[in-house]
């Protein structure tokens, strides 16, 4: 076995942009797949997101290493022909346009499955390929709003809080990755190609590991609402202040006994009001007051976490900011941050891939490409286009100009 990684030899044609689709093809590229990214002449919009150095975006680099880039004007028949020819040679097509756009370019599943019947095509969208909301433009936050996730974050009674991260996009990219690889596995075992409809809405909605069934099974009596610093339905579970820092404490399982002892409240262990996480939630003010009183005697969040977790095995954690995470000895030892050496941008730190395989412990050395960097190479190598043909396509504006920033 001289394979580079688990997906070595898998070929992907990638029409995705921003984060959800690119996270999926990033995971594929990092697992050894050959990814050709098709961009408009101006490039993926995320090439304009900060930080920009020498015209090159750190944001783009983070999500697009290991992909070769071809820039095409997909409105032209010639560009569509090129894509169809490439589709005959690949295993996977992935895209995350607003539903309808791929059809406009003659590149929907109905068209592509004729070109390559064994194809696995994955469409990622905010709200799905059909349904009353499907045609609206979507972003992570739009999915968060429609899935009830945004409504669950913030102060009770106050406005919802906006989170400064892509928690729908990344998870959706991972679900898409799983669906694509299972389809490839199915195909390798004698199954055919197929179409995958993966949405931010579904992925975000499945984050409700408790809320949906609680609402349903209570006959609508328990409507989950944002609850500020504490969990709505089980206790003790929430954020506490200690000194000038915050920490999280969770003692809903067997750790409840440890916490009661630490707080000097062994009596709670026989108290029917405190029998389970739900009844404790009805009496959570009393528990939280005792926790806060204890924290006041400690006065230092780091120290409190240490006592809780190391001495009493009660799950607790300090609330860290991004640089504290990056510098934490555990994260450093695990390699949670990966340093990319980009030829234009320079060194750049990004989150490393969360997937660690024992057979392939070292990450592949991958670079992000510039707009149209591989126009010639791909057309020549994959489709045997001549220099003259390529020049003529560039002149007519079908093929974008190579831009090395």
């Amino acid at each position, binding site marked *: 076995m001289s394979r580079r990684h688990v*997906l070595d030899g898998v070929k992907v044609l990638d029409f995705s942009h921003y984060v959800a689709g690119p*996270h999926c093809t990033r*995971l594929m590229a990092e697992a050894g797949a050959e990814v050709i990214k098709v961009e408009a002449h101006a490039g993926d919009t995320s090439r304009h997101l900060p930080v920009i150095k020498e015209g090159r975006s750190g*944001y783009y680099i983070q999500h697009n290493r290991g992909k070769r880039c071809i820039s095409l004007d997909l409105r032209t028949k010639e560009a569509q022909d090129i894509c169809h020819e490439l589709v005959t040679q690949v295993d996977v097509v992935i895209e995350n346009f607003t539903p309808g756009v791929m059809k406009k370019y003659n590149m929907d599943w109905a068209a592509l499955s004729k070109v390559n019947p064994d194809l696995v095509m994955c469409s990622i969208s905010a709200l799905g390929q059909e349904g009353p909301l499907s045609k609206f433009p*979507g972003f992570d936050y*739009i999915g968060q709003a*429609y899935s009830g996730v945004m*409504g*669950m974050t913030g102060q009770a009674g106050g*406005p*919802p809080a*906006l989170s*400064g*991260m892509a928690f729908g996009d990344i*998870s*959706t990219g*991972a679900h898409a*990755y*799983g*669906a694509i*690889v*299972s*389809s490839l*596995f199915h195909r*390798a075992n004698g199954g055919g190609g197929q179409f995958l409809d993966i*949405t931010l*809405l579904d992925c975000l*909605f499945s984050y409700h590991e*408790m*809320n949906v*069934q*609680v609402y*349903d*099974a209570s006959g609508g009596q328990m*409507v989950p609402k944002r609850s500020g*610093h504490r*969990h709505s*339905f089980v206790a003790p579970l929430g*954020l506490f202040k200690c000194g000038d820092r915050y920490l*999280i404490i*969770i003692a809903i*399982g067997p750790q409840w006994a440890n916490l009661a002892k630490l707080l000097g409240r062994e009596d709670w262990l026989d108290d029917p009001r405190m029998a*389970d*996480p739900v009844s404790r939630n009805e009496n959570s003010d009393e528990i939280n007051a005792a926790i806060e009183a204890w924290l006041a005697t400690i006065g230092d969040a780091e120290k409190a976490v240490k006592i809780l977790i190391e001495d009493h095995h009660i*799950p607790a*954690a*300090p*609330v860290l900011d*991004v640089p504290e995470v*990056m510098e934490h*000895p*555990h994260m450093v*030892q*695990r390699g949670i941050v990966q340093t990319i050496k980009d030829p234009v941008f320079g060194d750049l*730190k990004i*989150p490393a891939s*969360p997937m*660690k*395989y024992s*057979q392939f412990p070292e990450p592949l050395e991958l670079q992000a490409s510039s707009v149209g960097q591989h126009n010639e190479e791909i057309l020549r190598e994959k489709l045997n286009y001549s220099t003259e043909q390529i020049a003529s396509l560039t002149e007519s504006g079908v093929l974008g100009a190579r831009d090395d920033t």
Partner: protein
Amino acid sequence: MTQKMLEGFKVIDFTHVVAGPHATKILAEHGAEVIKIEPLDGDLSRLLPTHREGRSGYFIQHNVGKKTMAMDLATQEAQEICHELIKTADVVVENFSPGVMKKHNMDWETLKKINPGLIMCSISCFGQTGPLANLPGYDWIGQSYAGIVDLMGEPGKKPVFGDIAFGDVSTGAHAYGAIVAALLHKSRGGNGQHIDISLVEVLFSYHEFSVQLYDSTDGQVLATRSGSYHGMLSPVGIYQCKDRYVFILGLNHQWEGLTRAMEREDMFNDPRFTDVMAMAKYKDEINDAIEEWLDKVGDVDKALEILRANRVPCAPILNIAEVMDHPHSKERGTVRTISDPIFGDLRVPRTPLRFSEFPDIPDDQAGTLGQYNHQILREQLGYSEQKIADLETAGIITSKNI
């Protein structure tokens, strides 16, 4: 080809609560035989609400389609049963604190000797190595250590907390993807292997922006919580419209649509508002103009209609009840109903993977505690009824109708 994608593959599942069970639920939904091994008192999630007839809706949601066994893994007999089952399995998944599987003679070093082609996936809060590895972990512990909690809430105030398991579910999805990639690799002639997936690393990868931003500005720009509006871009945020909230994004080309929707062409022509990065400086002024307009429109549905006509990304902030009743969720089947023989009907989120060849989710049940003890020991390991009864008497295996 009517066979499901993972039919014929066997998974031995030592997971509990959400992250591991989400991964093995997807494996089960794709046709794999998932044998879930629980401790004698069951998966901790059997204690979580809602309860009916002693049975947990929470457990059902995350464990449909799995065959359940309950045994005392501290005993040699139970360990032997597991080793026998693992001999003919394709995948083992577990999410104990690191070290627990070793204590039960079930770590990777031991299992790969028993079954050299095995794929084992260990899911944990902090990963299998490093100074924090052995600490107990939950989703919110991972969120705190990954710098996620710090990004939610009002600036300068106590962070807020999301009543959602966004790390667990996503970690389960990453684990599922890694497992099927390893199966594909093996089917093409590769070896078995161990996969190490951690919540904190999955959650850290949610920073699609903040890490490289902090790094490449040499620490000048540190993301922090910014309340209802985005910290660095404007306009992006949650706005009030009478007694409702609405999310609006008006960056780049959408800024033109937004100003048109608000009939504020003067703002579109304002030279201060031409560069996305520069606009954040004026976010109070921009946000005030948006809320003033929403107040004038006075109705959230009307406002959404105007914004959409101008291709401005926008959405109402829905609560769970509203999501479940929304016509779009209904048409898409975002919510599914599980008919549990004890609990009754229960509505839960649908698994997000939708395949054209397999459009229907199997109508599977979640096992009761130890429901398949007898069947699996008899059929897969050839145990006699007497031997099984002896294990029950000795308290090594158990069953209960919950």
